[in-house]
């Protein structure tokens, strides 16, 4: 069951992560300021907490799922090297064998 959850892709690229962090920090700070002022006006701290929680829920919705807007700058990986990778693997093994004989 858990492997099914782990296989859902949730990655974002680096620019997307920076954008997501800016978005949630902005949303939470704005809702905190609105909540503080509203609570001060009606003299009930409960409303400040409710508005903060609404801001938290909104930023969860905006930044937790990997929306396509966060995947617009993918890293351009180099193309994979062809057959020479087999020769590279043999060399370290030979070195190991020599050391063991000693």
């Amino acid at each position: 069951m858990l492997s099914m959850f782990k296989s859902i892709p949730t990655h974002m690229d680096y620019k997307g992560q920076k954008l997501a962090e800016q978005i949630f920090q902005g949303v939470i700070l704005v809702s905190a300021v609105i909540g503080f002022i509203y609570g001060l006006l009606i003299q009930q701290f409960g409303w400040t907490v409710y508005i903060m929680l609404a801001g938290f829920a909104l930023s969860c919705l905006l930044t937790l799922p990997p929306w396509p807007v966060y995947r617009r700058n993918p890293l351009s990986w180099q193309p994979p090297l062809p057959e020479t990778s087999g020769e590279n693997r043999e060399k370290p093994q030979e070195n190991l064998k020599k050391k063991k004989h000693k």
Partner: protein
Amino acid sequence: MNTVLSRANSLFAFSLSVMAALTFGCFITTAFKDRSVPVDIHVSKVMIKNVDDFTGPRERSDLGFVTFDISADLQPIFDWNVKELFLYMSAEYSTKSNALNQVVLWDKIILRGDKTKLNLRDIKSKYFFFDDGNGLRANKNITLTLSWNVVPNAGILPLVVGSGHKSLAFPETYETAKSY
């Protein structure tokens, strides 16, 4: 921030820090407020008896009975940082054996949202007004004051004395045994 859990962790920690800052802000806006209001106390009946005090030494002590009225408007004290008020009426006097005696006679809890205009008549004391000895008889100066503890959402719990007190004197003679 590559996985959902990592983003959720970051978001939640940030929200908690902001919440802590908001709570501090709530405390700062009300930290230096004066929480005293004028209080009017009126005493209607004073009586004294001399009975066995089973909680103290095996001698008869003075037991006072005071019936009083309180009127006060506590509305200015309640703001967004006050959760409840714990009111208590205390009597303060001095006797030959003790320089200062303070006895709590009655208390009440007022939550935010309850009626804040107090207009209580003919209240009998909730707790026994025992003296340590026989110092109440013919005691000319007993001061009754109403004080309260302010319980906040965030911050210190100040103890405030209402501005207004009543002095009363106890009679010279004891009451003969009457059913109270």
